[in-house]
């Protein structure tokens, strides 16, 4: 962790939760891009299916919820007080 980078608490739902075996993790990051990268580094099971190793950003099937707002903006700032959720992008039924 680099000096001055805050730790962000991330709540995991669905596949990310199953892959890590954790409902909540703490990773360093000042933006969502940094958080995504840290998630892939610290929890290698997420690399590939959740975080694209080539871009360091979450795959299309996922998005973040930051303080109640849905976002896929990698520059979205986050901090220790932020509520950050990593969730699947789809909801709903088929018929």
């Amino acid at each position, binding site marked *: 962790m680099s000096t001055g980078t805050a730790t962000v608490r991330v*709540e995991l*739902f*669905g*596949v990310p*939760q*199953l892959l890590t075996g954790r409902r909540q993790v703490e990773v360093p990051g000042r933006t969502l891009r940094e958080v995504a990268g840290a998630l892939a580094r610290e929890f290698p099971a997420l690399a590939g*299916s959740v975080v694209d190793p080539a871009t360091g950003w979450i*795959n*299309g*099937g*996922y*998005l973040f*919820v930051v303080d*109640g*707002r*849905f*976002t*896929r*903006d990698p520059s979205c700032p986050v901090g220790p007080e932020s509520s950050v*959720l990593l*969730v*699947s*992008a*789809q*909801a*709903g*039924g*088929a*018929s």
Partner: protein
Amino acid sequence: MNAVHGRYLHIDLSSGTARAYPLSEDVFARLIGGTGLASYLLYRFCPPGADPLGPENPLVFASSPFIGTGITTASKIAVAAKSPQTGMIGDSLSSSYLALALKRTSYDALVITGQAPGWTVLAVDDGEIRLLPGSDLLGLDPAATAGAVRAELGSGFRVAAIGVAGERGVRYASISNDGRLAGRTGTGAVMGSKRLKALAVRGTQRLPAVADPRGVVRAARELAARSLGPGTAKYRELGTAANLAFFSRLGVLPTRNFQAGTFEAAEAISGERLFLEHRTDKHGCAACTIGCEHHYRTRDAGEAVEVRLEYESLFALGSLCGVSDPNAVLRAAALCDRYGMDAISTGSTIAWAMECVERGVRLPGRPEEWPRFGDAEGLLRTIEAIGERRGLGDLLAEGSRRAAEITGQGSEAWAMHVKGLELPGYDPRKLKAMALGFAVSTRGACHNRSSAYEVDFSDQLDPQAEALAWARAAASSEDRAAVLDSLTVCKFLRHCFSDFFAEAADLFERVTGLPMSADELRLAGERINTVKKLFNIRQGWTRGDDTLPSRLLSGEAGGLTAAELDRLIQAYYRVRGWDEQGQVPPERLRDLGLADLLADGRMMREYA
């Protein structure tokens, strides 16, 4: 045109006769097929004021140009009738081999009217129909019924059947085929009212050719490959049950009859927990590459039950009733399947009764048998009572709206429905687009005819955006859903297109040979929704029907007020080109190309 037969079969159960009628290319060009075709035929055949459980209410089964083309997921059959829950359009889709069998009969749709003299199995064997005695099947669940019918007629038949709930007129009874359900709006009760225990279809005819065989194969392969990408990852890996814990965390998980949006025991019945402790297997529907159907098994001391479970059943039989025992929820879902009942309406109507008990409202039957929030045994006991229309179950079989009207004592205030159809598992107090979608949907509160929650679960709109922006989003969501339902393609594919309307239009053109642009296909979606709206208007819809239960309009905790919802609805009407009362002006019908297609003079003309 290609990929359709251009005719439907009208079967009158009262006389035991059948007759074929043409379907013009115009109908498919404007309304596509599937739900669009079923809605059109319903509009044509159902007279104003028809009793939904009377012989005049048509039960329509429709296929689409895409069925049998190899396009992934496109093996859905569209069912439509006037709903015994809402008195308005009841339409539902079910993935099944029945869709393919129907298309192989050389008909694009079946329209079933009348009432059989006794309990009947209707066999459609290519172009021939037979009415067989069905009374021996009474009391059987849908799967056993289908097994018995196929044992007698042959395994080449595909069967749609009702359970005991449909036999006994539970207003939210479903139609089951191949383990899948045409679940919502009570089409199973309509089938039961016709004394039709099962429909068996065998088709051996050649499928109609597509216009561009190589192009369709290539496009179908590409779509199948994309169906295994990130756009469907959640459905493949965890299924829709994954919604539950997340929704609770967001505060949008309907809990204890919408008295809360967070369930304290959500983790116990979460999709993640079910996956780890109960999941056994997963399956795909007919012609599907996604495979979203997750099966779960009970893990308690009782007799083991294995059942397919979706989020909607999970919330309705779990948090909505305050039940936190996953084994009980699985058993409840299995009971709904066995009786042949829509799990959303079942759970919601029981939750209404639970709140009645909580508030001291007197119900029929013995108080010790009344269900209470969190009471797993009471939930299971009440589902059985509903399915058999016994005791309190006889009242609850009417659905929450009618049950509240009969019971009175202020209980209408917590009957959580729109137009008589119980709400699915999205608390609209925090979901503005979905709130509007529920309020204006033609089939009542529905997340499938309006997937407007996608706007709420995204950064598409600022929460402070003007009403027109929300209205455009809700209308657009409805139009896309109508196109998907009419192509009979699964909505889980919707994120597999980079430009849905353009790619779907190209596919439609390659399949049918009819020219279709993205804008024309979008317009077809609006046209189909307008046909449904016109059906409702003819059956007595009024402006007051487009609303939400008062509980959801208190404005508490940042939720909508009645005035805010009214502004959204007015904006939606403007987007649609309707007047302030939600009526469709004649010029709008002309613009949509519906004025001539739906002229009342053409209604039922051929067989009048």
